């Protein structure tokens, strides 16, 4: 038993020892904690509290709860004098000198605030570094945005004029001849705020009418149709004469209140098919100035009078099949305006998903050649023979417009919609040789262009949404003034204008149509007897022409 090791002595038994004087507990003073009654604004709770003698119970220097100030990692006992307990604490040590405290604070650096502020760039970069992918390059965008370009003098004047018009309620905005090569959406958008000031006078009926905004942007150097104009609902007059526009966006069909449009003296090659919605019964467009413009013109321009009539008949049947599906509006009162009638159609251009054009191609926008090859209405446009290109060739047929769209299209649409679409495009161009398929940036650029056109690209044959057109063709329309009289029996009768009947071959305008698959091609009309000869003639003519061409070549 003697060898038994002795247990170590318990060092601290003080808390067990009731007699130990060095208790860790704070000595309890005999006095009660100070009552807070004196400072409380609450009414007395108990009836006995009303007794004024109770005030005597309040004692100074009572036992109080310890109080601290500061953050959890640098706390110090509160020596404040602003305690609600009154001025009794003033006798405590005073606060450190204020200047000293200020300097101390400046030097203090928090090591960890305890809150993790995640930064997006960092976290994504970290997570993407975790995988060892080999080939997928990732765009690294510079986070320094380009400086906002300085506002040109012309733009400044334009802004001032628009603000003036908005303030005065004037509806005519004249921005012509300012030398603008582009105008920012922010400046031009504000013209939609123009509201006419109603006439307030004796004997005048108070009326708040819709504004009729007239915008003149002629004699500038605009290269793009200002897209924000497409959202100005009450635009009635628009002049873009003598600019450098190359295209009219399809969204122009949204400008239902447009009465007069002037797009002469630009670089426009064709008009969008959707534009035709403004040339229908009941629409408000009355004045249209398109020429001069380098529009594509159809070959075989000169028809004999007989052929012309025959073709008109065919065109009517074609229009019944292929025209826009919108219902004809019944008119309540007489109407005069512009009406478009189809006359010819070009051959169909087939484009595959990598934006290669197989077979026939329409005149390109950057080549000077503007002659467009025509095709009779009864001819079915078929896709050209495809080159076999390995295992993928079978799906390049694009023949079924039922079912889902391709994943490529969906991804392309997502890219084009994103806010960084332009950066993506630039990046694709610079990284062309890093394993990215050829022409991807051009494809994306086209998709961006269509997605910004102010509409969803809809197939003009099947009406489905599309990202990129797969077929394109041009239809030629006459646009002529027409008059509709409402007869007593409710029937509408259209009388073409005199100009139309006098000149057998008025001007035709090309309208570009799109299809979403290779089956979305112009419909064919049935042949009527007697047309076969015509066709034979045409064929002969074509052959002759071809012969001529070959001879020339």
């Amino acid at each position, binding site marked *: 038993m003697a060898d038994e090791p002795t247990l170590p002595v318990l060092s601290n038994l003080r808390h067990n020892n009731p007699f130990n004087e060095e208790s860790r507990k704070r000595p309890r003073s005999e006095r009660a904690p100070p009552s807070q009654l004196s400072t409380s604004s609450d009414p007395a709770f108990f009836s006995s509290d009303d007794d004024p003698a109770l005030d005597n119970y309040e004692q100074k220097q009572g036992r109080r709860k310890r109080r601290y100030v500061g953050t959890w990692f640098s706390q110090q006992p509160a020596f404040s004098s602003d305690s609600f307990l009154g001025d009794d604490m003033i006798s405590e040590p005073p606060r450190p000198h204020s200047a000293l405290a200020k300097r101390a604070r400046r030097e203090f650096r928090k090591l960890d605030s305890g809150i993790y502020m995640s930064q997006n760039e960092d976290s994504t970069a970290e997570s993407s570094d975790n*995988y*060892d*992918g*080999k*080939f*997928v390059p990732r*765009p690294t965008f510079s986070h320094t945005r380009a400086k906002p370009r300085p506002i040109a003098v012309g733009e400044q004047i334009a802004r001032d004029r628009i603000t003036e018009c908005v303030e005065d309620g004037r509806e005519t905005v004249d921005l012509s001849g300012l030398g603008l090569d582009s105008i920012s959406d922010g400046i031009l958008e504000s013209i939609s705020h123009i509201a006419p000031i109603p006439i307030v006078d004796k004997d005048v009926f108070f009326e708040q009418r819709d504004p009729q905004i007239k915008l003149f942007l002629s004699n500038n150097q605009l290269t793009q149709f200002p897209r924000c104009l497409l959202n100005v609902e009450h635009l009635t007059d628009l002049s873009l004469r003598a600019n450098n526009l190359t295209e009219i966006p399809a969204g122009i069909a949204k400008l239902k209140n447009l009465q007069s449009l002037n797009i002469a003296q630009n670089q426009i090659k064709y008009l969008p098919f959707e534009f035709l919605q403004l040339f229908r019964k009941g629409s408000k467009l009355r004045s249209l100035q398109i020429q001069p413009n380098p529009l594509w013109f159809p070959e075989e321009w000169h028809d004999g009078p007989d052929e012309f009539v025959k073709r008109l008949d065919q065109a009517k049947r074609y229009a019944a099949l292929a025209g826009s599906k919108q219902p004809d509006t019944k008119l309540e009162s007489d109407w005069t305006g512009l009406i478009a009638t189809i006359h010819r159609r070009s051959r169909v251009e087939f484009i*595959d*998903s*990598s934006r290669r054009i197989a077979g026939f191609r329409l005149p390109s926008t950057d080549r000077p050649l503007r002659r467009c090859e025509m095709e009779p209405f009864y001819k079915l446009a078929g896709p050209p023979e495809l080159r076999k290109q390995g*295992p*993928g*060739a*079978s*799906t*390049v*047929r*694009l*023949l*079924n*417009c*039922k*079912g*889902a*769209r*391709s*994943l*490529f*299209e*969906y*991804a*392309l*649409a*997502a*890219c084009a*919609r*994103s806010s960084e679409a332009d950066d*993506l495009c630039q990046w694709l161009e610079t990284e062309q040789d890093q394993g*990215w*398929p050829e022409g*991807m940036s051009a494809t994306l650029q086209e998709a961006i262009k269509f997605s910004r056109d102010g509409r969803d690209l809809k197939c003009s044959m099947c009406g489905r*949404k599309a990202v990129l057109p*797969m077929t394109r063709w041009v239809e030629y329309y006459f646009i002529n003034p027409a008059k509709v009289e409402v007869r007593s029996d409710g029937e509408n009768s259209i009388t073409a204008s005199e100009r139309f009947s006098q000149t057998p071959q008025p001007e035709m305008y090309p309208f570009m149509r799109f299809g*979403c*698959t290779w089956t979305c091609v112009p419909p064919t009309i049935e042949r009527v007897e007697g047309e076969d000869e015509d066709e034979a003639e045409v064929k002969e003519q074509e052959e002759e022409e071809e012969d001529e061409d070959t001879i020339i070549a």
Partner: protein
Amino acid sequence: MANDAAINGYSEEGKYITLISSDGFEYVVLREATEISPTIKSMLRNPFSESRTGRCDFPEIRSVVLEKVVEYFHYWYKNRDKDDVPDMNIPVEICLELLMAADYLGLDAKPTQPAIRD
């Protein structure tokens, strides 16, 4: 499950195949649904090892992207004959990689039904 089938060797006509992403995630997909991709189709037809095991390895495609591709396969399969197809939602973050994957898998053209195609 389909994995076992693949290993056991009767995958040649098995109903499902397995797609493996670069970071090792495996997705089991209906074989018929993947047939719209000519790349996968030829992988499974020709005498490659994929045709025996029914497992296709894609060391270039991340799992996030491959998941979307797989979602598309089923989405396409479900909507094969429908006229009104709801749009598939694609997050912008992966759209570029998805574009590339779609190009690689030959999903760039509007797919046609296998029955019509051949």
